[in-house]
């Protein structure tokens, strides 16, 4: 019988959210092709994380002391061996930094090519069409595998909805790969966070940026509270830093920092070109401004036209509520 094998990634023993999304994608494919669903994850079979994988028929716990920390060599070899054993039709992985690191290598070892960062799966009369984004999302490409099984794919975060975990007891099989310490050629160090004492707007994932609309230095705490609620760094446009209300190192724009966060929340910033140049690389721009014609709205993904002195406290409250 055909199998869809989903590899999951664990964090503190639990499968991550994106892994569960990959599992959902795998389940969808299995259902459509009438294949059996199998799941594999690195870790001890007794781990708590395996409990929530009940939807799968087969669960493999890949166990080896050499896999205690991630290495591309170790994971590639183990996964390849499991694939050899299971002989699945499809191999589904979550498109994480870790998967991006070893999966192309894994596919090559199997003489295949990974279809990475998939956002859509369509199945029609036995033909599976996989969609992925090209040109930074400006174009969609539709792919299909030409070679024989297995077809390897990794799915984009958020592209599939993780189903509610149904806790049914599944049989967990321990899979012990044949690993040789000498075949692991990289020595990874302990992960660490960048020192946080200096302001580093360039690498901050979330930014709340304040502009002239704040009117007075005394109103800054309003925005600071929002930044804290979001867990964001505070940034500013030039007039705020010129006035000395915030240090120059927090200035975004042509004469300050160039930033590219996941979220850039512009409060009371009209969007002069000097400012736009510094933040145009942001993935999502939210603008709050009382002037509906402010240029910042032209590049914003979401806009709220309104008095920031009303909108910002409301937003802070809503964020706190959402975060619990």
């Amino acid at each position, binding site marked *: 019988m055909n199998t869809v094998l989903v590899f999951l990634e664990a964090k503190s023993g639990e499968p991550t959210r994106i892994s569960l999304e990959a599992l959902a994608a795998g389940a969808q494919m299995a259902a459509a092709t009438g294949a059996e669903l199998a799941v594999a994850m690195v870790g001890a079979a007794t781990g708590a994380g395996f409990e929530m994988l009940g939807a799968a028929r087969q669960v493999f716990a890949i166990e080896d002391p050499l896999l205690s920390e991630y290495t591309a060599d170790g994971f590639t070899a183990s996964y390849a061996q499991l694939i050899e054993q299971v002989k699945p039709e499809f191999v589904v992985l979550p498109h994480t930094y870790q998967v991006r690191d070893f999966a192309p290598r894994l596919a090559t070892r199997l003489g295949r090519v990974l279809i990475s960062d998939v956002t859509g799966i369509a199945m029609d009369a036995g033909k599976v069409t996989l969609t992925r984004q090209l040109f930074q999302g400006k174009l969609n490409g539709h792919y299909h595998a030409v070679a024989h099984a297995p077809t390897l794919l990794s799915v984009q975060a958020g592209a599939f909805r993780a189903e509610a975990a149904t806790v049914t007891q599944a049989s967990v099989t321990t899979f012990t790969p044949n690993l040789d310490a000498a075949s692991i050629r990289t020595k990874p160090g302990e992960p660490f966070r960048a020192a946080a004492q200096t302001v580093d707007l360039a690498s901050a994932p979330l930014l709340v940026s304040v502009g*002239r609309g704040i009117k007075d230095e005394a109103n800054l705490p309003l925005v600071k509270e929002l930044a804290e609620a979001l867990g964001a760094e505070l940034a500013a446009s*030039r*007039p705020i830093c*010129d*006035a000395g209300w915030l240090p*120059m190192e927090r200035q975004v724009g*042509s*004469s*300050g920092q*160039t930033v590219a966060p996941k979220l850039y929340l512009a409060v009371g910033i*009209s*969007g*002069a*070109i*000097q400012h*736009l*140049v510094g933040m*145009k690389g942001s993935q999502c721009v939210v603008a709050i401004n009382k002037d509906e014609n402010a*240029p910042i709205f*032209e*590049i914003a993904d979401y806009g709220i036209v309104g008095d920031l002195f009303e909108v910002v406290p409301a937003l802070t409250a809503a964020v706190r509520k959402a975060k619990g």
Partner: protein
Amino acid sequence: MPVVSPIFAACWLPGLTLAEPVHFSLVEKLLLAALIAASGWLFWRRFGVIARRILAARKDADFHLFPLGRRCWDFFWEVLCQAKVIRERPLPGLAHAFVFWSFLAFALVTANHVATGFGVGFLDPGGFFGRLYFLIAAIFALACAVSIAGLFVRRFVVRPVWLAHKDKTVSWESGVIAGLIFLLMATYLGAYFVPDGSLAVRLLWWAHTLTLLSFLPLVPHTKHLHLILSPVTVFLSRGGFSEIPPLADDDDFGLVTGKDVTQLTALQVYSCVECGRCTEHCPAANTGKELNPREIILGLRGYLNEFGPASEESLLGRWNSQQAAFQCTTCGSCEFQCPVGIEHLPVIVGLRRGAVNTGEWEDEHGGKLFLALERSGNALGMAHSEREKFMAREELPMFDGSQEYCLWLGCMGGYDPKGREIIRSFVEVMRYLGTSYGVMRREKCTGDPARRLGNDLVFQQLAEANLETLAQNKVKKIVSICPHCVRTISEDWKAYGTPPEIEHHSEFLARHQARLPKSAASQTGQTGQTVFHDPCYLGRYRNVYEEPRAIVRAHGDLVEAERSRERSFCCGAGGGLAFLGEEQGARVSETRVEQLVATGATTIGAACPFCNTMFRDALASRGEGAPQLLDIAQIAAAALPTSVKESDSLNMQEERREEK
């Protein structure tokens, strides 16, 4: 001839005859000859070195002596008439002019003086021509003596800050030279007051001679070298304003070492009279930056003195700093003001070229700018889809060869929200006039910031790409809201092809002024006055001063800032500096805004999107009471009847009237 006839009359007054010694002994003649030889030798010992240094420098590859007309005119106007000297500093300028004109008048007097010593004097103090000439010379001598005394007082008592050196001292040689000039004049005039044939006549003659012979060797040792060199410098100048010479060959990257200094540059550097006009007008020097245009020139002179024109020592180092070279806004005040014909911009841009073309210049913002120009084709590094969105939203027609004008948006007009407002207003005016225009999808930055920062590679790529696009689209005429685009397209692109005709929108608006509605103050709600800020690249670079003023005047009261027209003070954006991050010292933009606000005007009229963006920031920090900032296109568009649509253009209205 009210002035001349009294001089003629005075010629016959018995007391007004110049006394000259009649007979010189052989000893005296030999002594004179020896002194002349010694003086000449001392002169040449220094002057020869300088002359050889200038001639040993690299030839100017692009130099053409012809056409001579312009050179002769410059020589007449700037050297003989002393126009630049007088215009900027009228009183000291006039004093200097009198000293200069006296020297001219004294050419014949001095020749005769020396000839007299050898018994071959050719001007007879008793004859009509001699009397007349000596008397005219005497009048000049008097004016000269008064002038030089005045200039002495100015330099050593009043002590204007611009005359001081870096270390705040004033050159003592100037005092000695002034003393010698005064002595020359005094010993000449004295001869009118001593009896013929007396010992005093002889003593005066010798005193005059000795002064003259001590003066001569001092000339090449001091800034008074300009007496000899600056007329040549003015005559041989490159001609164009801020003319950046083409790179000579594959090994020319701009001013890197002494080997790159050309003859013209060397000549100019040795002509510097250290008057400080350049520095007085320099926006960088006036806002506490390291850059001081006079010191750049003197630094180059110091380099040539120490290392010579064959040296491979870097020009940026001991004598000039890289930081100073990159603080220049290329506003051109220095070059415009220089009375001895020094062309500062080719030197400053040349030093930048040397640093950028070889990759020596490392600057976070500068590197980012070049990469943005390389990769995105605009200085802001914006996606050109943003520009296309703006064109679509404003329904700007595409240029297809059928329209009269290609409307050049420029980086600011295409991407900057304020610049876009200017475009919008200008388009309204063009629609009202029924002028046909179109925009080009594949327009790129003209390369202005790259050109001024000395990046020849990026500039050439942009110029060539744009020239090709213009040719493909069969563009004949361009109109632009940006003086930097206008200048770069019309002048700098010539190195790579033949650019279409281009004009600035102020020129376009002024030409169509008669067909545009004027606004009564009540109509636009403008109650106060408007001060117009002359953009450097429109004024000094293009000589356009009246056109934008005509537009301002049609819509309100025009007031002038203290520094306006040719003397306008930069906004701080030029020379690529708009993209280079924080400034040392005070911000040029804020200094300029202060000057403009001081006029009490309620509106600042601008004609350049870069000035506009600089002032916008500077005005923001002034709070609520700050004057409003408008481009002349916005001023003109405000007076148009509301809802100007393409269908309502003037031409259409006229056509309809004709149909009726």
